[in-house]
């Protein structure tokens, strides 16, 4: 089982890497990047004032695309010096990108852990209610998860400003100032939405487990409600939660981008946003930076879960 699992993960790793390279070079397929960047440089150095005579169309430049992919692969394998272009000058990509990456991922991971913890507590509380009363928290959850993330982030920020104006009490540092960047609030905001999603999936899983015969058996044997909830049902729900966790992770990344923009944080996501249009390599490298560690973590968790739950064979998906 270990060998097949290892092989499967390796194939998955290779496939994802291939498609990251494929995606990262896409701008070269559709645009004449080199000539366009040259023109942009001329404009930014004020060598070119009139651009009305310049015309271009969407192209389908397979050769450039292939060439750029090859260059990217070479760059990734040899680890050469990477430079990026920004308003007329070239800067070195590392270590700047790594610093931003560490900072943003700290927000993300702390937010996810906090969200997960709160979600588990919330689910337990909701599950301890009778199924009639459960309707109300479920309704609130539904409305909250239906709202777009930028709405919730904006509302939270404005709420804190409003409280500050009314009471002169600044609960959290809401934006980047000279004193430093906000830390606590971004983590709280980042934990909120993934937390709601985790609660939703956990609730679904728990309600499914509740109907299972083993719960009735356990009840009739005299086990307490909490033991069943915390030990038996929770153990079985972890599997379902893990299957959804990847999409929750993607969602949290989108939250991170919105958060960094709204709270004016110089982070990993805003760096991608600002620079990867002119330097598509940044997108490829950043995707690998996110992909490699999280893929390893996901695979290890999956391996642990599979070996714990499915000793008789079978897979999680």
């Amino acid at each position, binding site marked *: 089982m270990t060998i097949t699992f290892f092989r499967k993960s390796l194939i*998955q790793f290779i496939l994802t890497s291939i498609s990251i390279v494929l995606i990262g070079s896409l701008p070269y397929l559709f645009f004449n990047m080199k000539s*366009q960047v040259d023109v942009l440089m001329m404009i*930014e150095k004020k060598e070119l004032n009139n651009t009305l005579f310049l015309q271009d*169309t969407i192209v389908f430049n397979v050769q450039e695309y292939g060439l750029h992919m090859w260059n990217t692969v070479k760059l990734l394998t040899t680890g050469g010096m990477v430079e990026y272009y920004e308003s007329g000058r070239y800067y070195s990509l590392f270590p700047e990108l790594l610093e931003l990456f560490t900072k943003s991922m700290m927000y993300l991971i702390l937010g996810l852990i906090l969200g997960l913890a709160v979600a588990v507590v919330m689910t337990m509380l909701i599950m301890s209610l009778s199924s009639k009363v459960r309707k109300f928290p479920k309704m609130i959850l539904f409305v909250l998860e239906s709202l777009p993330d*930028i709405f919730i982030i904006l509302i939270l920020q404005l709420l804190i400003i409003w409280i500050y104006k009314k009471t002169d009490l600044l609960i959290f540092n809401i934006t980047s100032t000279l004193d430093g960047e906000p830390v606590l609030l971004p983590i709280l905001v980042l934990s909120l939405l993934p937390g709601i999603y985790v609660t939703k999936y956990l609730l679904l899983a728990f309600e499914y487990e509740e109907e299972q015969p083993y719960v009735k058996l356990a009840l009739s044997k005299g086990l307490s409600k909490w033991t069943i909830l915390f030990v038996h049902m929770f153990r079985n729900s972890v599997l379902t939660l893990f299957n959804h966790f990847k999409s929750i*992770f*993607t969602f949290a990344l989108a939250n991170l981008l919105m958060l960094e923009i709204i709270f004016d944080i110089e982070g990993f*996501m805003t760096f991608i946003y600002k620079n990867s249009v002119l330097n598509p390599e940044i997108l490829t490298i950043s995707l690998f930076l996110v992909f490699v560690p999280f893929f390893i973590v996901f695979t290890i968790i999956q391996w642990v879960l599979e070996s714990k739950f499915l000793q008789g064979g079978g897979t999680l998906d």
Partner: protein
Amino acid sequence: MTRNSKILVFIGAAYLIGLMVASFGYSHFIEPKLAKPEKLLIDDDGSLIAMAPFPPSMAYPLGSDIDGNSYLTKIIEGAKYTIGLSVIIALGRVLLSLLGGYLLFLLPTSMKRTFKGLSDALHYAPVTVFTYILITPVILTFSWSYDLTTKIVFPCLVIIAVSVPVLSLYVQEEIDLASNNEFIDNARTMGASRFHIFKKHIVPFLTPKVVVTFVQQMGQTLIIFAHLGLLNVFIGGSDTRVMEYDIETGDAITETFTMSNEWAGMISDNFQYIRSFPWMVLAPVTAFALTILAINFIAYGLKANRKPKRVNVPQEKLKTTSMSLDKEKFRMVK
């Protein structure tokens, strides 16, 4: 369909249809007759009360912009562009992924797995980023070189294409699920062709799911619009937005920022005022939030409707037949 889900679908649909009708009605009947907006609020005795932008009040429920236009009317006017575009894009996504899903379904299992593995890369960055990378060169960065048609059609195509891989896989999984039914095997033994089976037996299973997917994709598209708006990119009426060129040459061409009052464009234009006049951003974002909520109501209500209809019918028949048991129906057995 339960009563609750019906109510949800009704609320959502009524909101969307009402908004669209109001939007078209406003720009056809009311707007041409409207006078120029007031920039200053002046009291009866001639003293100045306030200057635009006005905060939310009775006269301006969602506040006003710098020129004194009420955001409520701006949002109603822009609704048709934003929602209309999202309908077109959602339709494009669903149609393309139906095709893609069917093609994937025809492929052998190993190829399916390969595609699934390839699409996994989309999990490691938000969709907004992928869309942004491909749209921005056309709309912002190299805006001098592309014409208006490209600037509207290409972003739409990108937003459609971004979600097709994942959606196709979903459609393919649903087709696989439906084709596991026993009657499919029966149809095959009776000589039905692959396409006939698809048309007659799989499509009825797929239709309700595709409808729900379509509604969900509308919501997803709106979220992408809102995100892109925050990233300074929007589709409707961004044709002469050549910011960097303007600053460099000193030309003051800024009047075409919001050609249409498209909501994403409003977010993008006003984000710089978020600190001083928060309602200028909050108004379009709230519009997005309410619309997405309405769409999710519809999707949720439709999802609850998924139970097959035939379950109820035979039960009623059974009841009537089982009631009439009398002696004559029994027969002696040796």
